């Protein structure tokens, strides 16, 4: 009985493996390549790849894609670029494109605004220190009461 059961088990497994379809195989392909599939599933994928031309073709295409990417990854950046980058940064000097300390960046406009406000304030203050103009031009009451018409002409005095 045991031997028969064992045979049945083997037969059952064989049926299960051959029934793996392309859709499932392609879905599991990435996990299989990353070695993340459990033993039985792994064998199923491997058997399917051996039997199915389409899926094995896709697998090969993925290998090629990986090789192309690896080839691009292996390229080294130009070692002289560092010097060019630093030269480019030097050229920024005076163009106003240099990075500024955030404190200085905020403080600068604040200081400019404050100094302008102070200049205006002191200007007004100095102007007020010299006294109001109206006080200087005030005519004394005695003079204001003089009737100009009643004053003798200067010419009369000259003729005397």
């Amino acid at each position, binding site marked *: 009985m045991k031997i028969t059961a064992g045979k049945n088990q083997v037969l059952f497994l064989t049926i299960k493996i051959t029934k793996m379809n392309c859709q499932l195989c392609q879905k599991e392909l990435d996990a299989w390549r990353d070695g993340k599939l459990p033993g039985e599933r792994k064998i199923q994928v491997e058997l399917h790849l051996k039997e199915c031309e389409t899926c094995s073709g*896709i697998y090969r295409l993925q290998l*090629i894609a990986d090789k192309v990417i690896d080839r691009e990854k292996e390229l080294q950046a130009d070692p002289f670029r560092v010097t060019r980058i630093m030269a480019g*940064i030097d050229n920024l000097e005076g163009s106003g494109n*240099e990075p500024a300390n955030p404190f200085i960046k905020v403080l600068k406009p604040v200081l400019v605004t404050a100094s302008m406000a102070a200049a205006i304030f002191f200007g007004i203050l100095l102007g007020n220190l010299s006294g109001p103009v109206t006080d200087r031009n005030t005519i004394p009451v005695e003079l204001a009461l003089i009737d100009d018409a009643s004053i003798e002409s200067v010419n009369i005095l000259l003729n005397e």
Partner: protein
Amino acid sequence: MTDSEIIKLVLRGEKEKFRMLVEQNQQMVFRTCMGFLHNKDDADDLTQDIFIQAYQSLSRFKGEAAFSTWLYRIAVNASLNKVRKSSKNLILQRIDAFFGTGKSGEAPFLPSDAEDPENILIRQEHVEWVRRALDSLPDNQRTAIVLSKYDDLSQKEIAEIMKTSQGAVEALLQRAKKNLREKLSAHGKNK
């Protein structure tokens, strides 16, 4: 000296210290650019632009993430912008290919069963259609796959760069791989 210490010194006016940051991260930025542009000269030029851009924006680096993460973000955005700008050239190339004068109209290649998968020789046409398949992915899938395949970053690191969750990155990578597989197998069927 840590990255943040170097950045402080650069911001205080010691701009020559920025050279250290360039030397440490140049290859990493270059690889990312290669993933998007697939051309060494273009990737070198863009790497230079990215570092100059990073220098100009250094005062905006808050130190919430690692400097490399911040630099990766600049590199990805700059690369995507560059790709979008050059899309006009791509249209011209396609027109060229349509009229049979360009090289992109070459027949796609499907490796035969006789070839040993581990020893398949890479031909120019392989390179062309792998690049085309990568370039045809949506921006977010393309970014995830470049950071994963070219920079060998973990899903956690990619999530940090893309400002998203690890789960979202995992889903993006799965979709990107599925799309790539479909595009590559379509090439195979066309042959």
